[in-house]
């Protein structure tokens, strides 16, 4: 219970010493000294600030940390985290000129090269897909080559390989692990060619697995930071830019303007934000900008209410009255005497709002609204993973954890700041 001991020792004379000391030391050092006053709350803010800085760096330079492009297909589908990816390789006779799938292309009109695969194993499908991709690539080249292998299916690996050894097939496609696990010795006349997926296949496995089309979950997660933080910050800043001045003016001027604005803002505040955002994005159509607009509209009332309330109470302070009596202009009073008082609350709401906006944005994209489905975004990834909940837990779990850690950083900051700045809660 060290925390309590520190608190009980903070009697008035000592606290006085601290304030004196704070005035002597610089700003940075005073932040560190503040730890003695605020105990765990200081740590809340400190840890979350470090987390936020890390997230901002990742959001600015995701390419530096991500091993792959978030949109590129880098491996087989549904690879579990760390699972050794099955690499389908081409097996050819030792003296064969063919090395990769592309070498099997022949001029249009010639007979299709026979390739053996094992029945009931996904390599056959993969072979077809990849051959199609390569075929589309080379189709328009001047050589006029086409790649349309004739696929022969065999009941087991031995028969498939035997067909190649006998010269019935030009090549066979099996998993590299199967070749290395005994087949190489059994068929000395054959050799291993390249993997049919070409350069992109990784043998090290994927830290967080791959998704339903074979993209790297970890890379998508890192790139998703950018969209999440962009939406969170922009929406909160837009809301702040509208909400704070409105709250200041309404609180300062009072009268019918204040009453009308407050009625509108209170109604907006009471309305379920996500539902309004759903409606707005559904009408405007999917784009990052529309999501920001939809979320910003929701948070204007939050700033408005707090700033207005504070303005109302500060307006009655003696020093404002004093400023009025020495003839300060109204704009001056508003800017120099009232505005500085609302800054701490605005800072708290801002950090909570960023957290909220990220959550709402993720909710919107989970529902399939808001963001275009091609963007690497956590909500979209979770929604995609939901369809494969029986096979791939990692596709749902990791993007969700990413949302939590970012939101947690911002809301922890808000929580700590509230406790530090809210004088109502300070112990007597």
């Amino acid at each position: 219970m060290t925390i309590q001991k520190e608190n009980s020792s903070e009697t008035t004379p000592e606290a006085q010493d601290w304030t004196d000391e704070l005035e002597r030391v610089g700003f940075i050092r005073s932040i560190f000294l503040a730890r003695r006053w605020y105990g765990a709350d200081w740590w809340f803010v400190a840890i979350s600030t470090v987390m936020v800085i890390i997230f901002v760096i990742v959001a600015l330079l995701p390419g530096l940390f991500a091993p792959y492009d978030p949109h590129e297909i880098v491996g087989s589908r549904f690879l579990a985290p760390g699972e050794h990816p099955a690499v389908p390789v081409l097996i050819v006779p030792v003296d064969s000129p063919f090395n990769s799938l592309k070498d099997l292309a022949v001029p249009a009109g010639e007979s299709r090269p026979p390739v053996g695969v094992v029945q009931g194993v996904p390599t056959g499908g993969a072979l077809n897909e990849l051959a199609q991709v390569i075929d589309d690539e080379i189709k328009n080249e001047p050589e006029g080559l086409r790649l349309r292998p004739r696929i022969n299916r065999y009941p087991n690996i031995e028969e498939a390989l035997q067909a190649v050894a006998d010269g019935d097939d030009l090549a066979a496609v099996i998993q590299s692990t199967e070749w290395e696990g005994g087949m190489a010795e059994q068929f000395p006349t054959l050799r291993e060619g390249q993997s049919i997926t070409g350069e992109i296949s990784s043998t090290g496995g994927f830290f967080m697995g791959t998704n339903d089309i074979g993209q790297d979950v970890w890379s998508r997660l890192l790139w998703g930071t950018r969209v999440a933080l962009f939406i969170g910050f922009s929406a909160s800043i837009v809301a702040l830019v509208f909400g704070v001045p409105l709250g200041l003016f309404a609180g300062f001027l009072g009268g019918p303007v204040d009453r009308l604005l407050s009625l509108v803002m209170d109604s907006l505040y009471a309305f379920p934000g996500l539902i309004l955002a759903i409606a707005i994005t559904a009408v405007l159509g999917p784009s990052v900008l529309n999501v920001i607009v939809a979320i910003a509209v929701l948070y204007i009332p939050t700033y408005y209410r707090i700033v207005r309330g504070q303005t109302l109470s500060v307006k009655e302070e003696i020093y404002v009255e004093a400023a009025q009596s020495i003839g300060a202009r109204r704009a001056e009073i508003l800017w120099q005497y009232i505005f500085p008082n609302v800054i701490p609350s605005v800072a708290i709401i801002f950090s909570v709002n960023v957290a909220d906006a990220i959550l709402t944005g993720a909710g919107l994209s989970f529902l399939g609204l808001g963001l275009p489905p091609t963007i690497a975004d956590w909500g979209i990834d979770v929604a995609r993973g939901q369809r494969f909940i029986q096979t791939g837990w990692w596709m749902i779990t990791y993007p969700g954890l990413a949302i939590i850690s970012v939101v947690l950083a911002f809301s922890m900051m808000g929580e700590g700041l509230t406790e530090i700045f809210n004088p109502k809660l300070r112990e007597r």
Partner: protein
Amino acid sequence: MSPIALIALVIGIPSLLFLIYVFVRGSVGLRRYILTRIVLTLPMVFILATLVFFVMHVLPGDPVSSALGPKGTPEMLARIRTQLGLNDPLIVQYGRFLLDMVTLRFGNSLVLGHRPIIDEMSERFPATLELVVPASILALLIGVLGGTFAASRRKRASDYAWRIYSVFIYSLPIFWLGLMFQLLFSVRLNWLPVSGRIDAALGSNLVRITNLYSLDSLLTGNWPAFFSVLEHLVLPTLTLGLILSGVFVRMTRINVIETLQADYIAAGRARGIRERVLVYGHALKNAMIPVITLIGLQVAILLAGAVLTETVFSWPGMGSYLVQRISTRDYTAVQSVITVFALLVALISLAVDVVYSLVDPRVRY
């Protein structure tokens, strides 16, 4: 009688009687307060309806052409636009919209058999109610007890533990929590059903009276159906309830802390009243008043959470209806659902304020 009317009667008649009782027996100040509050609800409903109208009719984007898709011929488009009155001047559309929404004439769905929207809602609304009520109760239990406990041990380890709980819960995406529950309890352990309200076989022979399945199965003594309903309710309720409880813990804690600093608590302490009695008896009772109002304001979180929870668990309530109709571009349905949500928010905040004024005699105009 449609289920929605039944539920409206069950909730509406007692609250009306209660209101009349309060009016007859209450003081002049109370009467004036409640009247003012009711009058103030009208502009709120009006503003929210205007907002819905603005979003659905004034923002760019043509709902009809997107509803028809590429199949729609220009003639069809023009016919439906005239039918819906979309060619009239905006101000005429606005007036008609307000009138329709206030009298609950929602019209027919644009897609899927063109059913009256009110019929679809009367099937959907009880489902949402069945989810939202137990979730709120769960959240209240956790929130009030946890928050008070944390406040009574301010700045001690258990206080920090509860605060971290509330911040952590607040940071959970509700849809993700639901999916994690599904992964653990349905996919891995196979204890509970993944989605839906009731087993399909049991659902087909359940007699529907109110469309609240738990109530219907109880009324007809259909025990297998009742247990199936409970089984399906566990995960969605847990998801929504836990998420809500984070906010409740936080609010209760702050309010109890404020109350614990009051002079009468210090006086009680000086007289030797036990700390537990002070916290759970004296302080909590007074702190509950602002807490209830604040909780009343969380209807927004509750409804937004319901939309996501229903989507995750394929729960056929209002929220999943909204999402489903947005994807089929059925804009009359979308606009009606949002209006109903707005009405709900306004009515609940009115109810909370009235109850508040009854409990706390300081609240008067």
